């Protein structure tokens, strides 16, 4: 009998403690649920809407596509609309070379821009990481500072710099370096300048964070073992900064592929990038279904580098770095 009483007592105690534990567990879960709800309502639901529109047909109506899935004609009307959905727009994308070319051009431009941004950004990040610790916060601030001005205004400013009678040409002509104004605006060069300029912080910051935590004695050790400074950079510093290189490149590449403002303002009318194509389909042609299909394909194209990025990150985490 005493045995039973002894075992019963603790279980009564746990029963009493249960409600508070349940409440606490619920609060914990709520904290996790909030970001998921955010993703659900602001990413997944809009994506499903876009995907649904991409399976519809364009129509002169309000909204400008058909079918519209609703219960105006009851449940059977809803399912009839559902059956009318098809992949015609996707087939259309493969039939017109314009879209394929736009995708490829976008990927190439984004790729070249990313490499240029890396070439420009790496020395900046390296210099910052090697600067005295007291001035590093200031340098970091200077990198972030341009974000305080509107992106659009900064791109407009580049028109003023790059146009034939612009700042750059005036300076070059005045110093006698050139006799004819350079044609930069409305070329791919202008797009590259615009993208490198706009996305530089996204490259510099991850590079800086990976270079900054590197122990300088590693470089000294490499030198001590007979490796000159440049060799030490390629054998030690660069491989160790690879996680930062990958992160920076993806942060530049992904938005650059879908970039619309920079090619539109700096690249002129003849540039063929997917962001511009999408804008034209949507606003000029008012063809929501095709532009939705373009957007869905763009998303798929970008998912590949994102997955690559996540894999690289998981690997880096596994190595404990």
């Amino acid at each position, binding site marked *: 009998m005493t045995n039973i009483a002894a075992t019963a007592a603790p279980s009564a105690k746990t029963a009493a403690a249960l409600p508070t534990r349940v409440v606490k567990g619920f609060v914990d879960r709520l904290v996790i649920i909030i970001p998921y709800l955010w993703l659900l309502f602001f990413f997944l639901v809009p994506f499903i809407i876009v995907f649904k529109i991409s399976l519809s047909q364009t129509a002169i109506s309000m909204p400008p596509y058909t079918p519209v899935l609703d219960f105006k004609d009851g449940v059977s009307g809803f399912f009839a609309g559902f059956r009318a959905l098809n992949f015609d727009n996707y087939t259309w994308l493969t039939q017109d070379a314009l879209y394929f070319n736009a995708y490829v051009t976008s990927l190439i431009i984004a790729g070249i821009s990313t490499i240029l941004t890396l070439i420009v950004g790496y020395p900046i990040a390296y210099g910052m990481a090697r600067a005295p610790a007291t001035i590093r916060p200031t340098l970091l601030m200077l990198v972030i500072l341009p974000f305080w001005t509107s992106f659009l205004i900064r791109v407009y400013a580049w028109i003023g710099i790059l146009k034939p009678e612009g700042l750059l040409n005036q300076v070059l002509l005045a110093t006698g370096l050139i006799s004819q104004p350079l044609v930069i605006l409305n070329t791919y060069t202008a797009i590259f300048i615009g993208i490198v300029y706009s996305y530089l912080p996204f490259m510099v910051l991850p590079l800086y964070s990976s270079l900054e935590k590197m122990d300088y004695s590693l470089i000294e050790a490499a*030198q001590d*073992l007979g490796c000159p400074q440049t060799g030490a950079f390629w054998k030690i510093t660069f491989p160790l900064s690879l996680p930062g290189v990958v992160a920076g490149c993806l942060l530049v590449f992904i938005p650059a592929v879908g970039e619309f403002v920079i090619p539109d303002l700096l690249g002129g009318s003849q540039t063929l990038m997917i962001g511009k194509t999408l804008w034209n389909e949507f606003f000029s042609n008012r063809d929501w279904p095709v532009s939705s299909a373009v957007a869905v394909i763009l998303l798929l194209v970008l998912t590949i580098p994102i997955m690559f990025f996540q894999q690289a990150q998981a690997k880096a985490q596994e190595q404990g770095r």
Partner: protein
Amino acid sequence: MKSLGSIRRDFAPWNDPNAKPYIQFDKVTKKFGDFTAVNNLSLTIFEREFFALLGASGCGKSTLLRMLAGFEEPSAGRILLDGQDLRGIPPYKRPVNMMFQSYALFPHMTVEKNIAFGLKQEGMPGPDIERRVAEMLKLVKLEQFAKRKPHQLSGGQRQRVALARSVAKRPKVLLLDEPLGALDKKLREETQFELMDLQQELGLTFVVVTHDQEEAMTMADRIAIMDKGEVMQVATPAEIYEAPTSRFVAHFVGNVNMFEGKVTERSASTTRITGATGAQIVVDNGGEATAGSDIVFAIRPEKIKVTSKKPADAVNALEGEVYDVAYLGDMTVYHIKLDDGQIVRASAMNASRVSEDPLTWNDRAWVSFRPDAGVVLAR
């Protein structure tokens, strides 16, 4: 074949006037802005010597090591290695290697690749590199860890990889910056002996920087005690301990009692020191002291005997009271408050389990020591 111990026993090139110095610091000064890290320092290290630079942090010992490695250039003076002036030679061309305090193992390379790094740099052929790496792994007993990366190793294993990597190139001199600083006490003691054996086996010159006096005493043939960028004394561990040449060195290494006084009698065999309160000490190794000069008499705690009665044959005996007793197992430490107020630290080995002359708090006691038990130092 000579045993390693006997090589070490006969090794004393610093006493040989014909011995050729291997490393020479010749009036070396190093300034960082206004701060003088190393001040007009001269020092000689011999081939195959295990040399320790001992000092508190900021005394300039690491700067000295970094100048030898080539990471810093002296502001003035010369550093010679095997007769060659090292000025202007970049670190990657110097025949010295360094083991870093942080180990500085390359995190993206395996143990094997870390050790092979320096060999590849000097263009050693592949098969030779493999052989040497295998040899090094065996030397530090890490054969089964060849394919691991540094983060998969324990602290002690990392230390050994760093060691293997720094000796793989067979440098003329191996520099060790606080080599055991990151290890726990027990591992540190084991590793001290391993390092000594390794140094003998490879026949290399080791220069080690440390702030741990026990470590320096255990491993080094000679120790340089440094303070504020200057060398205070260079000597064997026994000399440093038994015959310090300054108050600083006496204080820095081990425990010491200091008696301040005036030399009241000076002859070839006897120096009489009289303290402010009239207490007298007779010493037969007066050193440089001249009659009438103010000096300090320094004596180690274990050289002092504590007894309840005045020993009949004692030349030096002072009376006081037991102020504190600390029983440490292997020995007992007494703090005796002399009648003139000075507190004397004395330690006694507990050679038998039961003391014949037990002393405890507030007992009257006598401290006594032989006339050659301490040293006379300038004030």
